[in-house]
Structures are given as structure tokens and as C-alpha cells.
């Protein structure tokens, strides 16, 4: 066992891992981060995609000990509670910000995915959200071909990809993932 330290979704976290634990196993079983999924355990499907120091990687292909002292982002880190500042809940309905459209703040990419019913079973969604997030950070207005290229390592069996493209093209046309 070895203790590793991650900057995980902005928070410094520590855990003991086995030397042969993959980063995916460590995130799910030792850090309680369940959004990266195990679909193939050999880097083919992309369901375990996370951002390591800002770059998308398959967390099933990296040992947890290799990620020691590194920065990790997952879908869990993209959302925050959509809290109203009002102290007294009786004023909530009057303040106009309640009920919130969504109980959490989400990115433009996520909003577009919601609007276009982009996902079906959703198992590939966390990985695709992370791949798309990386793409839009590097290139705020990608073309359809660039979108297809960026997602080509994330398999989706349900949707035929078209509703995913529609959402991301819309984000691109609106100027990016603000």
C-alpha cells in the first residue's frame, strides 16, 4: 500500500492504494468518485475518461500511484449547488430565483446535452462530458469534424452520436462552454 495525494476536483485528498490499483479503481473504491465507469478495462471504450492535469486520459490505463501529486478533474467537479443567498426560506418564492431551473449550476455543454436529450443509458456520459470539456477549453468553437475527432475515443452504443453532436455544435455556435 502506498499513500497518494491528489488534487481532486479542486480539493486535496489522500488515500492508501495498492501498487497495482489503476487510477480508475482508486477513484471509485478509495476516493468515492463513481462517475468514471469501467466498460472495458483496456482503454477501448472511454467510459473512464477523466482529466489529468487538464488532459483527457483513460483512468483504467494509468496506475493510481502514477497520479500521485497530480490534478484530477471528473464530472463531479463540474457542478455546484445552485444556492440562493436568502437566509429565510419563506422569502424564496418571492425572490424570483426559486425554484431554480436546475438545482445545480452546470456548464453550457451539460445544458446543451440536457436540452437535446443527448444521452440514453448515460453510462458513457461522464466520459463524453469530460472529453468535450477538454475540447472546448482548447478550442471554444470547434467544427463538427473536430467534435467527432475529439469524441472518437468515447464509445456510445445507444444514441448513434447524432444528438451528442447536435448539442456540441450548438455550444460551438454560441461561442463556447462558458
Amino acid at each position, binding site marked *: 500500500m502506498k499513500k497518494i495525494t491528489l488534487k481532486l476536483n479542486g480539493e486535496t485528498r489522500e488515500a492508501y492504494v495498492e501498487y497495482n490499483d489503476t487510477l480508475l479503481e482508486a477513484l471509485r473504491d478509495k476516493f468515492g468518485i463513481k462517475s468514471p*465507469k469501467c466498460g472495458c478495462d*483496456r482503454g477501448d471504450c472511454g467510459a473512464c475518461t477523466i482529466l489529468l492535469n487538464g488532459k483527457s486520459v483513460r483512468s483504467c490505463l494509468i496506475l493510481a500511484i502514477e497520479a500521485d501529486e497530480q490534478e484530477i478533474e471528473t464530472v463531479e467537479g463540474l457542478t455546484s449547488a445552485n444556492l440562493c443567498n436568502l437566509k429565510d426560506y419563506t422569502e424564496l418564492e418571492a425572490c424570483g430565483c426559486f425554484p431554480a431551473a436546475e438545482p*445545480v449550476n452546470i456548464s453550457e455543454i451539460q445544458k446543451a446535452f440536457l436540452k437535446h*436529450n443527448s444521452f*440514453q*443509458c*448515460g*453510462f458513457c456520459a461522464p466520459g463524453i462530458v469530460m472529453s468535450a470539456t477538454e475540447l472546448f477549453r482548447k478550442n471554444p468553437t470547434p467544427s463538427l469534424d473536430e467534435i467527432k475527432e475529439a469524441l472518437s475515443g468515447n464509445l456510445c452504443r445507444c444514441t448513434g*452520436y447524432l*444528438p451528442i453532436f447536435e448539442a456540441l455544435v450548438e455550444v460551438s455556435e454560441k461561442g463556447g462552454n462558458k
Partner: protein
Amino acid sequence: MKNNVELTSVGKSVQKIDGLEKITGAAVYTEDFDFGQGLLYAYIVESTYAHAKILSIDTSEAEKVPGVVKVFTGKDFPCKFGLYLADRYIFAQDEVKFYGEQVAAVVARNPKIAKKAAKLVKVEYQELPALFDQMEAFNQNIEGAAKNEIDKDAILLHPELEKYPHVPFIYPQAKRNIGHWRKTRKGDPEKGFEEADFVLEDEYFVPRYSHCPIEPHAAIGKFDTSGRLTIWASSQSPFTQRNIFATALKSLGISHKDVRVVTPYVGGGFGGKAGVTMEILAAAIALGVKGSPVKIVWNRAQEFYNTYQRLGAKAKIKMGFKKDGKITALKHQVYWDCGAYMEYGANTVNVIGLSATGPYKIDNVWIDSIAIYTNLPSCGAYRGFGYSEFSFGLESHISQAADKLGIDQVEIRRINAIQEGDTLAYGAPMNASGLHECIDKAAKSIDWGTKIESKDPNKVIAKSFVLFWKAPAMPPNASSSAFLKFNEDGSINLLVSGIDMGQGLLTVMAQIAGEILGLPVSKIRTENPDTDRNPYEWQTVASHVTWGCGNAVKKAAIDAREKIFDLIERVYSIPKSVLYLDDEKVKNSQDPNFAIPLKDFVIDGLYNKKENTFKGGPIMGVGVFLPEFSSTVCNVETSQGGKPNVHYTVGAGGAIIEIDKRSGKMTVLKMVEAIDVGKAINPSLVRGQMTGGAMQGFATVMCENMQFNDKGKLMNPNFTDYKIPTSKDAPLELDSIIVEHAQPDGPFGARGVGEHVMIACAPLVANAVENGLGIRIKDMPVIPEKIALRYKEKMNNK
């Protein structure tokens, strides 16, 4: 009653109610549950032969590994199970019948220890001759069976087949490798062929395929110290699983009430998570490690070879035509490769035996649909349920015949297309159908009749056209139920046991309940199944839950609405007949000022001012649906007399495909599907099914290809070598046309559409290849290499 019949929720493309959970990582799948420090892990020891006798199993070395808790073998669980035909054991008993079959399981405190120790289990086998070809398996012991004997040279995979329990509409053939033989006979086929001006005979071959949900199967079983068995499973069939667990394990003292199956979000099913496969291992092993939860998760390779595969099929088709294109007779014989165990696949074979005419009116029909055991992995439900397989042959055949008769390929289909009231192959009348509207709209979408020339001389652009249909394949008493309960704020929790594996069931059920109760979808949470909490649903298969579960939800909502109206009538003395629900309020059509918000009384009761008391109480609704008109009782030799299928959904598909003559590489420039869904409860989700299904259908014909070696071992059980489409393989344009001819017994007229969308693809590609290059490929897959080689062969022979 409210005069305004305009729908407020049904028919709208509302956002999926599970959308937010799925794009934020909040959605919980089976493997995401935490079970604490007591969790055990099971790893399976697999057969290394396709057919062999188990001489001995030595578990002693594995048991010595620190961290190993227990090792199980077939001897621990001598019980058989199966949905339609109980032909399989939890672990192999004295014999293994396919490469990869579960022989033993090692249970340990840590998954890595379980995997390591499983390698130390020593199994001694005596190899037996194996059958990998269904025709060879079909031909075993034909003469012996006639005498009710087994010839000494015959290879029989299930010599005791006639003793296996099965449902009444499956007909196992004693002393043969045939688990079921469905015969349908209508009219006089011989006379039909005599009357024909032209008869075409041909054979077609469709190999096996894998579902490839991105989430592999996973199950956790816990048999607690009080004797209660709980299974958490990624499943399309929680209630059917509960029934099979309770039935198979009855000898171990288990009762239905003590078995609980919990199914969270399912990461893709496509039929592969229907019925019971590996989940029974979690249930059985849990009984042997009382008190501790035990987890078993399939790796990607096991997902390929030890769940179900799609059935392989060899079809012989003979069709007679008049000069004008009218079909006079059809003889369609399909020989199915069902693998080592066919408990679910037997029903696939059954329904094709009833429906292999395709959506055509044919007076003289002869169908044989034969389920054959082989020493390959088991086959079962896969999206399309046999219809994709037979349609490849039938739709190829019709286009071939049209060309030979000199009739347009769309026109020949229009001439023969089935209509409402026409007699089906098994004698019952066809349901409401907008097939001709589908044909017209799909043909128009690809501008059928005009040619497109490629600018590249090395490429051709070809169009193709097909029809398709499918009925839900379900027992006549497959039922659905729903339960809903109001909350203090007027929102409701809707409980069903249909599974949302992505298709959008939770949302669609909320739309149906919301429509009846005057509630927006945002006020409804539909809950994933837990058999303790949610009411009964047979299974989420057969594209039938929008229809069946939807009917139950509609009834539950009406039940709750009637309770609300009864209460208002009792307290306000207003007749029920003038009340209606709208905008989360009870309103009175005779009094525009009357409006009582639901949230004021659906939990706390209605205040009676005269008495200073409260009346009523929590409002709940219950709904049950069973298709009481359905029957599978019929003549065994002809299939005449029953009403086995509740309805067919029909459609037409067209494609424009560019093909490179040198490499065979294809690009789908455009695809269109026009499908009669009765009523699209949520058009966005219907289109989602059409898009995803088209992609999955194209994948089976254009890239997926299962490779077995000569020992029956699957050589490509991974996504590196078994290619499924990536984002770069998506069709360039897809036109999804929704046609709506209401299903009279469907909720708001709806019928299913989930599977139909992929049936068109394989024959569309084969027909386009012939239309473009003049070569007819009759064996799937139609991959570039095959096209290029056969085109070259054709050019060389010129």
C-alpha cells in the same frame, strides 16, 4: 368533463427526467453501490473446451490462498433454470457445452485475490466431439429419433431434452438437437407456386452478434442472517429474475416474498440484460456465504461470450410471384444456431416462425423456424428479436425478385404491403397500420427513382429500400402494473418496474400520468424498480413497455383522478361529471371560479367547513394491464387458431450509400426511416431510438464480425478486435419520420418502436451494394473487404 381535448404533456418532446442525473455523474448504476468492508468478490473459472466431460475439479490449492473465503462448483447447485425452456444449470454439472462456460467460482475478500486464486482451480476434462454448425447439429440422430433411440454416432447436446420443463408454446424435439420447431402453414403453398409466373429460391446467412452495452453485466447478492435474499443487478427483468431465483432456489428454502431485486440505472441492455444470465450466480453464491454481500461483475470478454449472443441464422427462401409482382406463395425455413443453452432464444425462434412473412399479405405460407443447439455460447434476446435476421434474407430476396421481374423495388413492396384487416400467417387479422404512408414518405425522402452519379469515377452512389415489421414477443399473460402516490406539494412519485435503459421509459410514463392528472413532468419522479417497493412488470423487452406499462400508468392515474373527484363530490356536493384536472388544480366546467389546488388536499385531506373536519387522506392510484385478448393456443402443425402477437409496428427504410469500388468502403450519405408508432408520446425520444437503432443496425452489417476458432473459442471478445461504431462512423444524414395511425388499445394510441429501428439496416446495405455494383452478397456482414473481393471477382469474370 373538460371539453378541450388538446394534449398538454403527451406528444411533447420534453427533456428526459433522468437527464440531469446522467450528465452530472449522479446516476447510480449497479457497480456504483457501496457495500462496506464485508463485501466479497466472486471470480469465475471457465471451461477451456467447447464440449467436454468434467472428470474432476480440484479446488484445494485455490482454497489455501489467504483471503479466499470459499470455492463453489456445480455440485453445490444442482438446480436447472430457464425462462421459456429450463435447459441450463447455474454451473456446469458433469459436462461443459461451450468455451467459457462457468465451471466454478472463487469467492475472496478482494477481487484481485479471487482472480488469482481462480487460476489455481484444476479442472480435468475429457474432450467430446463438438458441433459448431447448426445444419450439422440439425442432422444428428434424425433416424434414431424416429425410433426414440440415440444412434451411437450421434452427437446430442441435451439427450434428456424431452424432460426439461418449458412453456406450452415451445416444442422441444426428443432425441434431437432441436429445442423448438415452430411451423406455420396457411393456404396451399404448392398451389401458390404452381400459379406463379416466376419462382425465386435462394439462401441467406446471418452470423452471431454481441449487444455491447457499455456497462457490462453486474450483480451483487446478499443472503442475510435472517434468510432474506437481495440482488442488486443491472437488469431488464427484475420481477422475472425474482421469480426465477425463487423457483430455481426453492429447494434451498427460498420463497418469493423473501427475494428482493433492486435495479438502478441500466447502462444499456439491447435485450442482453433480459431474463437471467450471470445474475443467478450472485443469487446462488450469496446463499453459500450467508451474511456477506458478494459481487460479481463481468469483464468485457465475458460480456461477449457468457451472457447471450444474437442467434445465428441460415434461411432458405422460396417465393412465387405473378408477372405484376403479386406474391403467390412463400416458403421460408430458418435454421437457428442457438448455442449450448437456448432458454430465452427458443422464444426468438418461436416468434419468427409466426412472422417470417414480413409485412406482406401472402395467401399461401409455409414457415419452419427451427431452434438448434450447438457448442457455441448461448443465444437469446437481442434488439430486433429475430426480425433483423430473417429480414436480411427476405428483403434481399424481394429486391432480387423485383429486378428479375422488371418491377421497381419500391413498387413491388407497395403492391404486396399488408394492410389493416388482412389475414396474418397464423390466421388473425392485422392491426391498424400506416405502412403505405410509411412507404410513400420514405421513398420521397430519398427521392427514389432518380439516380445520383458520383463525381469520383472510382465510386458509385446507390439507393436502396426495404420494409420491416415487428410484434412484441411475449407470453399472453405478460402483465404490467403501476402505483402512484401524491406528495404534500402536489408532486407525485410514480412507481413502475419497467426499466429505463436509456430509451426514456421514466420520462414517457411521467408524461402519461401527467396528462391524465394535469401535472407537468417536472412534478413527477418515476422510480427505478425495487421489487419490494414497485409493482409488477413482466420484463422490459419486446418494445412493449410504452404500450403495456403505459396502459398501467394511465389506469393508475385515472384511479387517482377518480379518487380526487369522489372526494370533491363528497365534500362540495358537485357531481363528478363536471370536474376536471388542469394546471395542478381541480376545476369545474360549470363554474370558472372553482379551482382547488391539488397540494391543498392530496395528503392532508379536504377541509369540510360545515363540520370543521378533514375528509379523504393521501391520494394514491393503482393500475394493472394484461392483454386479455392474447392467446398462444393453436394447432401445433399449422399455428392456426391463436392470437399470439398483440400487434405489429410497421415501417419503411431507405438509404443512399456511396461505395468505393476498389476498397469496398461505404459511406451512408443518408438514411430514412418512416415508422408507424401509433402515437409518439415523446417525439424527441422516438427519434432518439431511430437514430441509435440505425447506427446499431448498420454496425451489424458494415463492421461487427464475431470470430470463432475451430475449437469454438471466441477470438475477438473486445472492442479492439470487435469494432463497434465510433463518433466518426455516424451516418451523415438521418431522416426520422414518425407516422401515427393510432393503436386502439395503446395509451393515447401508442405502440412500441425501440427495436424496429435497426431491422432495416442490413438488407438496405445488401440491396444498395447490388443496386450499385451488381453483386448480391447473401452472407452477412457486408463488410468492405468482402465487397471489394467479390466485385473484383465479378469484373474478372466479365
